[in-house]
């Protein structure tokens, strides 16, 4: 049975190797870093990468601000709402992203300050990340004794904001980190919403460059793989720290 590792390993390694080789190809000039050098000097590439990073950070913050209090309160005071929360949080997996774009663009056509800038993407991105953020937060909070924590904090005179920021959040660092990194990989790679709504995010830029230069598209794909790898490594390390 062990020989089966060979075809499996080859299937997963070959595309990465081939992409690396392709990114170094310089046509008649052999192999080198020309594609990378040209990308570094392309402002559009930096703009798109920066836009995607900014959207990722905004999505993480918006998602946590909305979800942390809600999941906390549901767990502490209104556990009867759990089925509703579970249902709402799997909806984004049932409604494909392309259908959600169709639905959102049909309803929200204005005002311009809302739908006209790239920041509008944060709205659907929070929805796309919802299943993962909710699961991470819920698992994290269920492992805590919320009632005791809350009562201890309140008996010491802590207000609700103090309680959430200085008691709850520090106890949830691992869950929050996992949720944040997963949200980041989703947002950096997201293409459906950005391309339909015509915003130049990183994935849209890769697709755009792919129509003119296979080598630069390969270089950027490799970079995207590296970003995903780093994020998942962070999740794995965070999980190991929590297990201790």
């Amino acid at each position: 049975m062990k020989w089966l590792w060979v075809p499996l390993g080859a299937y997963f390694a070959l595309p990465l190797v081939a992409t690396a080789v392709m990114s170094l190809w310089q046509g008649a000039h052999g192999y080198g870093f020309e594609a990378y050098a040209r990308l570094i000097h392309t402002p559009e590439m930096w703009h798109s990468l920066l836009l995607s990073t900014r959207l990722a950070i905004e999505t993480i913050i918006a998602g946590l601000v909305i979800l942390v209090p809600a999941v906390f309160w549901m767990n502490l005071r209104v556990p009867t709402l759990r089925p509703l929360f579970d249902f709402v949080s799997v909806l984004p997996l049932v409604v494909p992203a392309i259908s959600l774009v169709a639905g959102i663009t049909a309803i929200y056509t204005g005002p311009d300050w809302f739908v006209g800038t790239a920041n509008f993407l944060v709205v659907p991105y929070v929805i796309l990340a919802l299943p993962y953020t909710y699961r991470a937060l819920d698992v994290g909070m269920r492992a805590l004794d919320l009632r005791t924590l809350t009562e201890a904090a309140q008996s010491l005179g802590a207000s609700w904001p103090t309680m959430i920021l200085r008691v709850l959040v520090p106890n949830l660092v691992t869950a929050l980190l996992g949720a944040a990194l997963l949200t980041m990989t989703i947002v950096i790679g997201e293409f459906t919403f950005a391309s339909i709504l015509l915003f130049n995010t990183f994935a849209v830029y890769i697709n755009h460059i792919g129509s003119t230069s296979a080598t630069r598209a390969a270089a950027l794909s490799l970079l995207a793989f590296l970003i995903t790898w780093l994020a998942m490594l962070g999740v794995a390390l965070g999980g190991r720290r929590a297990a201790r």
Partner: protein
Amino acid sequence: MHWRERAADILFLGPFLLFATAFLVFPTLGLFVQAVTTKHGFSLSPLATIWHDNHLVAFRNSIEVSVLSALVGALGGAIAAWLALAPGLPRWARALVSTFSAVAANFAGVPLAFAFISTLGTLGVITGLLKSIGIDIYAAGFSLFHIEGLVIVYAYFQIPLMLIVITPALEGLRREWREAAESLGASTWQFWRHIGLPVLLPSLLSATILLFGNAFSAFATPYALTAGNLPLVPIDIANVLSGNVSVSPAQGAALACGMIVVMAVAMLLYGLLARRVGKWRAR
């Protein structure tokens, strides 16, 4: 005191419920309304357009790609998970498999498409290597940009997803029953035929359905790969939204609803099967 409790409920739960209602529930319901509305009011004609030839082809392609890639992913993922659980595998190898699976399961979309174009595209590295030893895969009828190509590309995120989903079920199976069966003199074949597969079947089926849904809703990967030339439902919807084709928004909404219905059926089956899995966990 009572009104303060209510105020707290609204303060803590309100933003989330409002947000989900406004940007998830409303848009979804809106699609269903839009799909049965024309200029002249209520009508089933937009829904009927799903049965038009070209949309039907898109649905057939989408389902074919999703079924095939779910089967390939389920088989490959189950084998990979089984290998990764084999005793005697060094710890670092197991850690590598689990981290790589998390990465590859999330590595979809545009970068994945270009990775495979670099590999098996018409000018891909492997295509070139094979050509240099006399094998021209494109002359032999293969194309990365048709259904068989999509299945190969999708396997890159389907196999790792299967591995992640099925590993707990396999772990539950390994420990006691295998030893019990062996001590009673069962062969490997007998173990799988009478114990392993029947116990795993609900898990395997539910995981396969999950993979189907994962492939069915994929948009970025096939769009970047085929430049929108292979008719799939998500690509048809995108063409309507971008105004590339003269199709009414209502028909686009009907297609989007068609996708939601397929996904809802798949997820319902997934949920029912996943519940059956619990039957064996309890013991």
